[in-house]
């Protein structure tokens, strides 16, 4: 359910970015460039990238080497995978703390032609990391609850 909402959100962002860059390109060719359109597209892209990264995490699409994991017998493999998720959880938690600090830090800075607060862009990291934190907690919870799975 949550995943579906997140997908809709990401798809809308992707669509908007396509339209914004498309419009900017068309306007430039037509000789009436729009300044803000690319800026907004890039702002949205930061958000899209983080939400997409979380969706990829939910679907276990982030690539890594499974050579060692494959060599382990299944019961031990399960614990190894849980331990790995634990490491990721610690990393994401650590980054989240600094992402929040950074968002506050960046707030007074005004960027680009639109003069928007830089925190608008930087908040995407905090939001994305928060989503990933939730995903990791869920995956660990499921991993503990389903024996052998």
């Amino acid at each position, binding site marked *: 359910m949550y995943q579906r909402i997140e997908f809709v959100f990401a798809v809308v962002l*992707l669509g908007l970015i396509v339209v914004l*860059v498309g419009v900017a390109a068309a306007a430039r060719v037509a000789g009436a460039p729009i300044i803000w359109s690319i800026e907004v597209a*890039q702002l949205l892209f930061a958000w899209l*990238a983080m939400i997409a990264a979380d969706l990829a*995490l939910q679907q276990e699409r*982030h690539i*890594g080497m499974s*050579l060692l994991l494959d060599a382990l017998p299944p019961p031990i493999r399960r614990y190894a995978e849980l331990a*790995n998720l634990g490491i990721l959880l610690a990393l994401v938690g650590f980054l989240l703390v600094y992402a929040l600090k*950074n968002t506050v830090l960046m707030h007074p800075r005004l960027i680009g032609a639109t003069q928007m607060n830089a925190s608008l862009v930087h908040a995407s990291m905090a939001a994305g990391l928060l989503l990933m934190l939730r995903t990791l907690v869920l995956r660990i919870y499921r991993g503990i609850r389903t024996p052998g799975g």
Partner: protein
Amino acid sequence: MVILIAILFAVFLIIGLPVAFALALAAIPVFTLSGTMPPTIVLQKMVTATQNFPLLAVPFFILAGNLMNATGITKRLVHFAGLLTGWMAGGLAHVSIALSFMMGGISGSAVADASMEARLLGPSMLKEGYSKGTTAAILAFGSIITATIPPSIGLILFGFINEVSIGRLFLAGIVPGILLSLILMGATWLVAKHYGYAPEARRIPSAREVWASFLDSAWALAFPVILIIGFRFGFFTATEAGVFLVFYALFVGTVVYRELDAKRFYEAMCQSVTDLGMVMLLIMMAAVLGYAITIERVPQEITAFVTTLTQEPMAILALVILLLLVTGMFLEGAANILLVTPIVMPVLMNVGFDPVHMGILIVLLINIGGLTPPVGVIMFTVCGVLDCKTWAYSRASVPFFLAVLFFLALLVEFPALSLALPRAVM
């Protein structure tokens, strides 16, 4: 500190963490232990990586490829490739190579192409009596053609991280892509003769059949051609070309083929989002680690170190080729480009190699690394789908590996193969 980064990265990779997270974990000590750089910089570098106009090309080309696939273009291309090459000895094998070449204009990723073809053509090749090893080897080696035909995601990433024109890289990849296809088809022909593999089609197709099928798939084949024309006349930058191709794919899907409905469109969007999530996290984390190693002056130190070893450009290039073949065995393509090329490019450019020429060579090398045991990503993908043993694949891939080495030698010896087209056009 450098050694600490390298060890941490290796350890996190081996215990099975995703590459993107292993990159971040390896970079964090630089920010926490140094005391001079607050960890908030990590987040700022992640944001900066997304605020880059050339990089916006990545979502657009991923989306355009997925949309093209959803339009039913793939089956048309299979048909066309079958007509063109099916009548030769080892017909299906040639079909797979011709298909990789055509798909290169759409999918932009060797692993995606290899897994698609292994599912699509693998079973029929086995039925025709090809051994599992040969089938896997042909499909895997053919897929690396995708890496050089525009719009290749690998080339976009290379251009982004090394500040090389993506338009030039795209153009430079075309001739090597054609040459590699021909060389692989030559190798396939020899192998097919040796094992007595039959042609797939019993007769040479009529010109009319070929023409009809060409027209049917022309919309996909025009993809790279439109790019070249667009760059030549300065209609668009690489990023804008990406947007254009998205609209083009929508047009082909809804107006020409009429196979793209709302459901397929949404699925293609979702597929693109997860593809993008994987690539972007990798890019952001690689930007963080890239910043960390620059602070630690790693590229300069490596350049200095290599220069004390030898000043001979070809010897340096040979060293880099060896290094990339090795790292290519262990790391996936995108990670490799983002991580290794910023370190080796200064060394190469220092002795006078052209960045565009090197870009094509390096992106190919990294993909070749994916073909070789012990842990080639493309090899795993194909062998996984076909349920083929690694040793059977390894034995069967020897002739193709030799063919690719021959191709690499040509590419190194004659820079004009890659550079002539961008020089003539841009």
